[in-house]
């Protein structure tokens, strides 16, 4: 039997890869993917908990997360397109309109 901790470690590793991607990539699409990566990492741990604790609530949460992820992807891409149309770039380090 695979211990729960292994899933958690896996989840943490994937999450941190997502964090790394989010913090360091310039392309906003990849950043977006990193976000999806982090969401999936959370999903892994939730499903694992659900399995080991013999409780369905973890998986219910996963369903909602996937729903929100879909919605977020739709809105996010709409924003990216609007942004790309105006700024003609997908690189986030070239967007600093809010600079103080």
């Amino acid at each position, binding site marked *: 039997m695979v211990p729960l901790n292994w899933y958690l470690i*896996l989840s943490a590793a994937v999450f941190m890869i997502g*964090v790394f991607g989010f913090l360091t990539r310039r392309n906003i699409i990849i950043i977006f993917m990193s976000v999806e990566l982090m969401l999936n990492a959370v999903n892994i741990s939730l499903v694992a908990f659900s399995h080991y604790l013999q*409780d369905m609530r973890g*998986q219910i949460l996963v*369903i909602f997360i996937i729903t929100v992820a879909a919605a977020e992807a739709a809105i996010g891409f709409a924003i990216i397109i*609007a942004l790309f149309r105006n700024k003609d770039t997908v690189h986030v380090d070239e967007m600093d309109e809010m600079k103080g």
Partner: protein
Amino acid sequence: MLPELFFGYYASAIVIFSLLVVTRSNPVHSIMWMLLLFFHIAGLYLFLNAEFIAAIQVIVYAGAILVLFLFVVLLLNLREELKVKKFIGSWPAGLFIAAALLVIILSVVKSFVPGPAGKYSIEFIKQETHTKALGTLLYTDYLFPFEIASLVLLVAIIGAIVLAKRKKGN
């Protein structure tokens, strides 16, 4: 022994594909690796007796979201994209933060204590079937959150249309 081997394959595949996703300079490649990643995650879900989740992982993520990614990437100028730097200048800082967070999280994993088990044992799910068990719960106890989720999707649809629509005259 077999489950550990099975998990080991999936886990290492997931980590490797994740790394590949965030490090490719060509977004299309990233998406392709992500597709593989999602399938492996779905596999892991099956391994955890969550077949319905595995199914929507493939359908929603791989089928819907990733296709959306592809469409967006097609809008961009890929040739240009391949020539420029893919990381921001201070990427080591990002790496450090991610690594440090990982270390911290890992350091607490071992002290994790599972709570009492619920009623959805493997036998119970086998008897109920997984989809039905999940569906019953979703449409009874979690009816309102479920409805709200539908609302969220509706707003997302409308929002996406409004945002992405070209203004008249542009």
